[in-house]
């Protein structure tokens, strides 16, 4: 059984169809890339997986370990092991990053019936993970993402992922807005988490990221459906020839 199985998923926003019969199956341990032009529905897919309210699922199914994920609240999905790295991470003034991380981690552990982490255990874990991502302690004391640069926000997403240790990570354009050094730090962070038990869906507009996070499978999304699936060489082909050919195929 695939870890994630999306069957004929159709989604509307404000009465407009954005996803149109999308199918996708991701097995444990696989990294899938989803590439597509702006507006093709990549973020919509990511949000629907995470459970954002503004999207109306009009048809289809999403199964996580065979369970109906669409019936779950966003926090339940997270506790079950889903993680979405946001394309545009939000700023939360007044909620210290440390408090946020700790509340999230302990809420998930509680829901899974695990013991909460003690303060020293938690601090140690955060310090280690932050160190590997070049995130300094001062940033952790600030409000979540408040005053962070675009790159710092993306690194903070990966820090959250490293701490929460999800089984299924969806990364929505984690590469956008990063210079090459930051991209490397982020990609290394992601690669460290690759494991036979963990699956990833890496959403990107550009092939560049896939030089660092090498996918097992590449899909092309156009007009709300997967129009082509291939190996990592498909990404290179897209880079060379653009999306136009696939958009025509979809039409």
């Amino acid at each position, binding site marked *: 059984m695939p870890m994630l199985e999306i069957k004929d998923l159709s989604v509307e926003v404000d009465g407009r169809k954005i996803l149109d019969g999308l199918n996708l199956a991701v097995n444990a341990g696989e990294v899938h890339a989803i590439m597509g032009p702006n507006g093709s529905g990549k973020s919509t897919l990511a949000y629907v997986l995470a459970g954002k309210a503004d999207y109306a699922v009009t048809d289809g199914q999403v199964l996580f370990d065979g369970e109906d994920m669409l019936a779950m609240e966003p926090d339940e999905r997270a506790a079950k092991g889903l993680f979405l790295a946001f394309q545009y991470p*939000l700023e*939360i003034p*007044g909620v210290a990053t440390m408090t946020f991380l700790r509340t*999230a981690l302990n*809420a998930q552990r509680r829901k899974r019936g695990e013991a909460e982490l003690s303060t020293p255990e938690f601090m140690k874990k955060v310090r280690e993970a932050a160190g590997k991502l070049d995130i300094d302690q001062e940033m952790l004391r600030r409000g979540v993402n408040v005053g962070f640069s675009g790159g710092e926000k993306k690194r903070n997403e990966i820090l959250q992922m490293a701490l929460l240790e999800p089984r299924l990570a969806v990364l929505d354009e984690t590469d956008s807005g990063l210079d090459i050094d930051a991209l490397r730090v982020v990609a290394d962070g992601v690669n460290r988490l690759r494991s036979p038990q963990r699956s990833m869906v890496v959403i990107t507009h550009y092939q560049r990221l896939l030089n660092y996070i090498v996918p097992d499978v590449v899909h092309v999304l156009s007009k709300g459906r997967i129009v082509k699936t291939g190996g990592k060489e498909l990404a290179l082909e897209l880079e060379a020839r653009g999306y136009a050919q696939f958009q025509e195929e979809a039409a």
Partner: protein
Amino acid sequence: MSAEVRPIKTAAEQALAEAFAARKGALARDPLAAQREAAFRRFAAEGLPHRRVEDWKYTDLRALMREAKPLAGPPDTAGIARAKNAGGLLRVVDARRIVLVDGVFVPELSDLAALEPGLTVGSMAEALAGADAEVVGRVGTVAPTDDVAAALNTAFMGDGVVLNVADGVTLARPIHLVFAYTATVAAAVFARSLVVIGKRARATLIESHEGPDDLDYQVNNALELSVGDDAKVDHVKIGTEGSRALHISTLMAALGARAELNDLSFTTGGSVVRNQLHLRYAGEGAAATIAGASLIKGRQHVDTTMVVDHAVRGGSSRELFKSVLDGESHAVFQGKIIVRPGAQQTDARMMTRALLLSEAAEADNKPELEIFADDVQCGHGATAGALDQDLLFYLKARGIPAHEAEALLIQAFVGEALETIERDDLRAALADAAAAWLITRG
């Protein structure tokens, strides 16, 4: 157009008139008798403020105060015993507790041992009985206001605290004025306190107000606060009155040259609460931060009305008021900033934010700027809205359940106002009180 005809007195107005008449004999030798008479005449002419009185537009006291409760008698032993643990919200703050039970200063519950040199603490009733010239000369003069509720306090006030900090004295320990209502029947309490902070002195003054739930007692409290030149005062008022209480409080404060006032009111209790502030800039270059945080629910009504009077040059004022409103609660903010002709280089900014947790909650905001000087910076802003759904989603996507996510955002919202408190222990105590409120919210 005809002049407004004074309507027939309400039962409450009638009762207040009778109560004042009955007290006359007792006040025969009171050194403030003339001031009290004048104050009562002011009330008699105006009656209880109602919605056509601009300053009371949103808090129609004539309608909200159907009856005037009898004046509370002096507390009995049982009442005093009940007040023993009052002010417990601030357990973690090492403060000098001065306890007032039903408006009466109770030395045996107060921490009067080893007063720092330069600190004096006494009873208002005693000062008046002894015709203390310093006190008698000062009451009603610090920052005079013609507000009718303040006038009622002057007319009826029995006791309160008189507190002095001498020039140049820094009080390391905060002073905590604990106001406890302990009577088992509903009565009215009128306390008046006078706090004089000398030049270059520093002090933290905390007031807390509490009483039993389910009893419709009435509190009309007033505090005159004089802050000397170059002095610095932190003032925090905590309102946790009982669920049916009517609480009116008037702070009349004056700031000397280069004085600093850091004021915060924190309100979770009471049925109808009116916090009024009259702040007068008496010396040049004074600075005040006035903050507020209210967390209310059910049918609670909390009105903050303030007049910030920049009478001299170079003053600055910052207001930041945050209300969290659940149920059918109602928050009112009226802020008037006056910049008088000589008050050049005034810098005044006012911000109010309301967080509406329910559709039925309501927040009214009325800023007023009266500016008569040209070289000034003044501004105000207001927002009202629900919790940000996108932020909630971000938190939930990280595994935080909806209720906990809401609590985090509400605490962050209130936290911005609490940030103005310098002392960590005091700020933490109020953050805990906000967290406790979130739990009772259900």
